[in-house]
């Protein structure tokens, strides 16, 4: 298959925009954006978006369905977690298990309402949006005079926050470099192997130059991040979580039958049903999955801010939806990928970080984010219309 420059540009628009925006901020902040600390910040500050968006992606695939309750649910989980670990002094492992159980219960209830009672998802989750923050705040204020629970036990913080094999700032962190280089080699190996396998079976495959270019670019990005992170003290623990979750959902969406079901249900629900797919089960799984992912997001956030308070998780649902939509996930369902969503999340993260570094007013930042979101969707829809 020949790929001309035009389709190449079109397929990777957001990626190119991301690079341009990054360069723009690097110039306007006189190189501040390019410093190791900022790479670290980009990951730790946006970890919640990366994780939460994986869940939101699955919901949106089923037909543009969203979960408005996840931000408030983060607040509730924070409050319950604080109560268990700080007030009751419960064992970290048991607490984590209990919180996950709360997520499973909510996910089952929500999934049942959406999939089997046919309540429109945005209404079903609007209820949680309202109720959970109220409930969470109530738990917090009745257990703490300040409305905030802290500090969480170190054993909990260590699981999600901090750095692996931490070294001093400005010193090259060897474990980090080794992991990065191994990842690069893995990319090379996998790309070559899958191409060779395809050629051997006589299928279509990318040209050698195209594949080489792709591999070199991806490796360059990985190495850049590795180097910057190594200089900023090592791999943030949360990055490992993000990587595992992102790889897991890439695999589910791209390589499994259940992942295929999500795309097909979003693409044409009736066709999916008549092809023997249990469309209700898919909807159920989407929301069950979303609730569990939300709990994991709560862990990452709690261990970063080290306290549970009533504003925890505010607007997270919007951040996750924005990341998906900017990353090319269709607002009508049936289309969107994990890598695309990652690019969307990174783009928003870079804009946030860059504007903060530039000292742009916080209110104005929101305006810019709104425009970027609208622009991305408009672009998506217009370019689809043209290609028809």
């Amino acid at each position: 298959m020949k790929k001309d420059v035009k389709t190449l540009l079109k397929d990777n628009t957001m990626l190119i925009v991301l690079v341009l925006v990054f360069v723009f901020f690097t110039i306007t902040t006189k190189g501040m954006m390019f410093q190791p600390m900022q790479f670290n910040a980009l990951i730790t500050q946006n970890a919640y978006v990366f994780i939460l968006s994986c869940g939101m992606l699955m919901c949106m695939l089923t037909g543009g369905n969203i979960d408005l309750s996840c931000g408030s649910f983060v607040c509730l989980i924070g409050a319950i977690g604080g109560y268990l670990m700080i007030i009751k002094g419960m064992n970290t492992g048991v607490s984590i298990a209990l919180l996950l159980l709360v997520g499973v219960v909510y996910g089952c209830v929500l999934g049942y309402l959406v999939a089997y009672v046919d309540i429109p998802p945005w209404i079903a989750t609007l209820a949680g949006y309202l109720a959970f923050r109220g409930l969470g705040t109530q738990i917090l204020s009745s257990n703490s005079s300040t409305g905030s629970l802290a500090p969480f036990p170190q054993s909990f913080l260590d699981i999600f926050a901090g750095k692996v094999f931490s070294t001093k700032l400005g010193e090259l962190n060897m474990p980090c470099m080794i992991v990065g280089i191994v990842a690069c080699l893995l990319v090379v190996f996998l790309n070559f192997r899958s191409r060779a396998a395809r050629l051997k079976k006589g299928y279509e495959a990318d040209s050698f130059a195209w594949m080489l270019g792709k591999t070199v670019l991806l490796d360059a990005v990985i190495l850049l991040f590795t180097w910057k992170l190594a200089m900023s003290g090592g791999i943030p623990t949360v990055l490992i979580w993000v990587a595992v979750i992102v790889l897991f959902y890439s695999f589910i969406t791209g390589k499994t039958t259940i992942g295929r079901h999500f795309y097909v249900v979003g693409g044409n629900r009736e066709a999916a049903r008549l092809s023997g797919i249990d469309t209700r089960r898919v909807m159920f799984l989407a929301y069950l999955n979303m609730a569990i992912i939300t709990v994991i997001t709560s862990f990452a956030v709690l261990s970063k801010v080290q306290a549970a308070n009533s504003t925890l998780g505010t607007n997270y649902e919007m951040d996750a939806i924005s990341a998906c939509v900017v990353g090319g996930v269709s607002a009508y369902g049936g289309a969107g990928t994990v890598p695309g969503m990652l690019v969307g999340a990174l783009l928003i993260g870079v804009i946030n970080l860059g504007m903060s570094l530039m000292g742009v007013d916080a209110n104005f930042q929101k305006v810019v984010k709104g425009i970027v979101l609208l622009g991305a969707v408009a672009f998506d829809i217009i370019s689809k219309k043209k290609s028809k």
Partner: protein
Amino acid sequence: MAKIILEMKNITKTFPGVKALDNVNFQVEEGEIHALVGENGAGKSTLMNVLSGIYPYGTYEGDIVYEGEVCKFHKIKDSESKGIVIIHQELALVPEMTIGENMYLGNEIGRKSAIDWDKTYSEADKYLKMVGLTESSKTKVKEIGTGKQQLVEIAKALSKHARLLILDEPTSSLNEEDSKALLDLMLGFKKQGMTMIIITHKLNEVAYVSDKITVVRDGSTIETLDCHGAEQISEDRIIKGMVGREMTNRFPKRENVAIGDVMMEVSNWTVQHPKYTERNVVNDVSMYVRKGEVVGIYGLMGAGRTELAMSIFGQSYGTLLSGTLKLDGKEVRLKKTPLDAIKHKIAYVTEDRKGNGLVLSQSIRVNTTLANLGGVSKNTVLDTDAEYAAAEEYRKKLNTKTPSVEQLVGNLSGGNQQKVLLAKWMFAEPDVLILDEPTRGIDVGAKYEIYCIINDLAKAGKSVIMISSELPEVIGMSDRIYIMNASRIVGEMKAEEATQENIMSMILASGRGD
């Protein structure tokens, strides 16, 4: 001689790949009831859509002359302002709104800023009386039956000061009694000088109301018959006009296939409508299909063919009230899910490939394996290479024209989409294939290819049930034919015995019998 109120001259309308109307000429005299008859897809509705401006001026060729002037309608409002009002086959009423609101939808009475509800309802009541409805116009539409809803549509048309009223299959969803009332109403309007065009399949209705009959076939007007002329117009005469096309080599010969044992048999199959539980969409149907046999089910639209097929396919439509299903001699009870039907090697290839057959936003590869993902995966992990190979195999087998199987299905032509749909179900390796209108909306060349595929399936020992509204196709392709009308099987014949005339008259006889 009365004056000609409407003349449509040399109308040609093309859709991508299909010529729906080819140089049609059509004349209507003032004050008459003119019937348009023809098979499904002959072009009757298209012609009326051109007339009412649904297909705006410029998207067709030819002229519409109404009351002596050439009309260029750009939208429905343009034709309505001239008094041409169309009532569509599917009722276009909003159930949650009142009758009055519905009647003046888009035509609200009042000043620009506010609706004058008092006037709306009193005007509405006036027109309701004219069509013989006693309901208040403040009644919600969902609270009245379909028969009355049809009358509301007519009242709505009257409120637009219609002088030429077009009724597209007005009685298709009505029972005998309501139909009669509606036809009488039409005769009443005629006395008051209204001109009407009625599209219908029911030839007894045609005979009852019409002054003239125009027969449409394959996008052309074939003839116009005068009911008050010297010659008595019999139904046979009309049928001959409707179906009288030549059948030469439109169907590939099937090599002599050994027809085997009965593969699937349904008995006393009765299915209830999913919403209107008082209606049985399939009524006491018994039928069977043998291995290697192609069985045709012919019937007009709304006869219950699709409902029968979908109810066999894991009750994916309606509720099964009674009936048994035997596969290969053994009685089976399918769970209420298509998946169970697929597991029992039944495939239903839908008539609505875009609506519920294909995922247009996905590739040929994804669509091909959709009904049998297990065939290209291990422990739920997809082998995309195997999937690619499967899609490629069927692309070659069915001669699907596409640059690659990674092409999105939405970008393919109708004929190629149909092939992908067939590929999907062939890949599921069924024993029984129910093909619902397998050649709808595709061109002649692609049709021939689809016929060849059907023959190959029969040759491979599969049982094929082909539902079709095209008589020549049913006769040309089937070994045996069931004729369905009004939710029942009303006849069965061998293909050798079947002629278009005797099938048609079988349907008409059954329609009047009860």
